[in-house]
C-alpha cells in the first residue's frame, strides 16, 4: 500500500485546459473523495491517475514512483466504473479471474482470492452467473469484487453509486466505507454528491472548474469553508448568504436588518463590507427580539422542519428541531447563532475570519 501524490497536474485537450495545476497529497490507506459540480474535472483527474488520460503537465506519483509515462496496466490500480463495466460475456467468477489470469497466477491461488472476495461481498451464490442475470446492486458488488481480488495499491471509484436507487445507495455507501476500513487500501473516490463525500471521506477535495477550492476533513470543510463556493457546496440545505456592512457587533444589510457577530469580531472589521454566511441549521427561533421573517414554505420531515423564509430582501433557508405550525405568510422571529457564522470578502468570496 502506498499514497498518491498529485503535483501541479495539468490536463488540456488542444487549446482547452480542463485541469489547472492541481496538487493533492493522499496518504497511505486514506479514503479521499474528489467532489464538485459536473464539469469540474474530478473524473478527468481520476482518469489521469488511472492512466486512461495522458497527463499534460506536472506529475502524478503512486508511492515513490512517478507514473506519468507508465501504462495503465502497469500502475497496479483497480477502478470501479460508473457503468460497472463488467465483461458481459464472462461469468462473475471469470470477471474476477481475468486480471489474475493475466498476471499468470495459478488456478489454486486465483480460486482462493476469488473465494475471499466473494465471501466479503456476499457473491458466492452468483459466481456462475452472467452480468445480465444480476440486479444493479449485485453488478455493483461484482465490480468491487473485481477490484478487490487484484489487491492493488490504490482503488479508484468513479461515481460508483449514481446508477443505484436511493435506498441501495445509502447501503452501499456504508458498505464501501467498511470495506475500505477493513482492507486499508488507499482509495480515491469521485462523486458529485456532497452527502456521499461527507459520510465516506477521510479527506475531501472540493474542485471547481479544474482547480482545487479546498482540501480538508469533512468537518473541517463544514466548519471552516475557505470561500463561498465551498461554503455553499458543503451542507444541505445550502448556507445562507447576506451582504452587509460591519457596524459595531453586527452586520447591517442594505435593508437595515442587523445580523449578530461573535463578541469582539466587529471591532477588527468595522465599516468593512462583508458577505455574512450562516447555515440553515445554525439559527434558533426567537419569538421576541429575533429578526422577523416571512414564512414562504414549510417542509416538515418529521425529525426536523425545513422552512423557506424571506428576511428583508434575502431568501433564507432554516432547519429547526422544533415543529413550526405556520401558517405560510405569517411572521417568524429567528436569530443566527453568532458563534457559528462565517464572514467572506464579497468581492473575492474568500474567508475573512
Amino acid at each position, binding site marked *: 500500500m502506498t499514497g498518491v501524490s498529485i503535483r501541479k497536474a495539468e490536463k488540456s485537450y488542444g487549446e482547452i485546459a480542463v485541469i489547472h495545476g492541481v496538487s493533492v497529497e493522499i496518504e497511505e490507506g486514506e479514503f479521499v473523495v474528489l467532489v464538485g459540480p459536473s464539469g469540474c474535472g474530478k473524473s478527468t483527474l481520476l482518469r489521469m491517475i488511472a492512466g486512461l488520460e495522458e497527463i499534460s503537465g506536472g506529475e502524478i506519483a503512486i508511492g515513490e514512483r512517478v507514473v506519468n509515462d507508465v501504462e495503465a496496466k502497469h500502475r497496479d490500480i483497480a477502478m470501479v466504473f460508473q*457503468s460497472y463495466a463488467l465483461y458481459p460475456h464472462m461469468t462473475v467468477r471469470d470477471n474476477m479471474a481475468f486480471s489474475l489470469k*493475466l498476471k499468470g497466477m495459478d488456478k489454486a491461488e486465483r480460486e482462493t482470492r476469488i473465494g475471499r472476495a466473494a465471501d466479503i461481498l456476499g457473491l458466492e451464490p452468483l459466481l456462475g452467473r452472467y452480468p445480465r442475470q444480476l440486479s444493479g446492486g449485485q453488478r455493483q458488488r461484482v465490480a468491487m469484487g473485481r477490484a478487490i481480488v487484484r489487491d492493488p495499491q490504490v482503488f479508484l471509484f468513479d461515481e460508483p453509486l449514481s446508477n443505484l436507487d436511493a435506498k441501495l445507495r445509502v447501503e452501499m455507501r456504508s458498505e464501501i466505507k467498511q470495506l475500505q476500513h477493513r482492507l486499508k487500501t488507499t482509495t480515491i473516490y469521485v462523486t458529485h454528491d456532497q452527502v456521499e463525500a461527507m459520510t465516506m471521506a477521510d479527506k475531501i477535495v472540493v474542485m471547481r472548474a479544474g482547480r482545487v477550492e479546498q482540501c480538508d476533513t469533512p468537518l473541517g470543510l463544514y466548519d471552516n469553508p475557505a470561500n463561498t463556493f465551498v461554503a455553499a457546496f458543503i451542507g444541505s440545505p445550502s448556507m445562507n448568504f447576506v451582504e452587509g456592512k460591519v457596524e459595531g457587533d453586527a452586520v447591517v444589510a442594505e435593508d437595515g436588518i442587523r445580523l449578530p457577530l461573535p463578541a469582539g469580531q466587529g471591532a477588527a472589521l468595522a465599516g468593512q463590507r462583508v458577505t455574512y454566511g450562516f447555515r440553515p441549521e445554525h439559527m434558533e427561533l426567537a419569538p421576541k427580539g429575533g429578526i422577523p421573517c416571512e414564512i414562504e414554505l414549510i417542509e416538515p420531515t418529521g425529525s426536523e422542519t425545513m422552512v423557506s423564509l424571506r428576511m428583508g430582501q434575502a431568501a433564507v433557508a432554516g432547519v429547526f428541531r422544533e415543529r413550526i405550525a405556520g401558517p405560510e405568510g405569517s411572521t417568524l422571529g429567528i436569530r443566527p447563532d453568532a458563534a457559528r457564522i462565517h464572514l467572506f470578502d464579497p468581492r473575492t468570496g474568500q474567508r475573512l475570519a
Partner: protein
Amino acid sequence: MTDTLTFVPLMIVLGAIGVPAAVFAALGAGERALTLFSGGAGRRARPWVWLFLPLILVILILIYPVIVTIFTSFQDARAENWIGWQNYAWAFSGQMLDIVGNNILWLVAFPLITLVLALASATLFDKVRYEPLAMTIVILPTAISFTAGSVIWTQMYSFQPSGSPQIGTLNAIRALFGADPLPWLIQPVVNNFALIFVAVWLQLGIATLILSSAIKNVGSEMLEAARLDGAGEWLIFRAMILPNILPSVLVVLTTMIIAALKVFDIVYVMTNGNFGTDVIANRLYYELFAANNLGHASAIAVILLFTALPVALINIFQFRSEARS
C-alpha cells in the same frame, strides 16, 4: 407494333387500378364472410383471410417454380423423360468436380478474407481521427455494380506478353520493378484468387460498416477496465471486442457465404469460366442458355438451393434472436 402501343399502356392502367381494386374487393368479401361466423371462429379465421392473397403469390412465384425445378432435375435435357438421379451423378463427376472445387475455394477464401480485412479495417478505423474518410474510401466500391467492378478489374489485370507495353495497372507496376508480367486471369489458381479479390473489393465496405457499428457498441468503459486489468491491445480485441461482436461477425460470414455460393457476374464478365475458373452459377447459365440442357441446369439449381438454405436459416435465426434480446 400498333398492338403493343395500345396493349402495354392498357396493361399498366389495368395493373395500377385493377390489382388494388381486386385486392380490396377480395378482402372486403372476406371480412363480410367473417361476420357470418360467431366471435371465436371469426377471430381465428381472420389472419387467413388477410394472408390468402400473399400466400397465393408466394406459392405462384416461389414454391411452384422450386417444385418444377426439382422435378425437372430428374428429367433429360428437354424435360421429356424421367432419368432418375443421372443429372446429379453428372453434377458430381468429371469436369463438374473442378467447378464444385472452385466454388468451395470461393466459399472458404472469400468470406474469410473479407472478414479478416473487415475486422482489421473496422478496428483500426475506430482508433483514428480520419475514420469517416477511411470508411468512405472502403465503402465506395459498394456503390459499383458487380458487372462494372468486373470490367474495371479486367482492365487492372490486363496482360500483354513480356516486352509489349503493359496497359493493365498491376502488370505495369510489375514492369516498373523489372518483373515479368503475370497473366492474372489465365494462370490457374492465381486467376481464381484474382476473381475472389474483386468480390472482396466490392463487398469489403458493407462488411466493414456492419462490424464497425458493432465495435462502436462495445462499451468503452469495459475496454478501459480490461486495460486496467492488464490486457494489451491484441488481448482486448480477442477477449473483449470479438466475443461481444460475435453476432455481427456471424451475419457478415453467412452473408458472404451465400454471396460466394451464388457468385456469377464476376466470373461471367472476367473469364466466362475459362482457364479453370468456372463456378456453379456460371455453369448453370451455360447449361440453360447455351447447352439447352434443362435437366443439368435444374440439378445445379437444386444443389445451389440446398447448399445455401442452411446458411440462410442460420442468418434468419440470428436476426430473430438479436431482435428478441
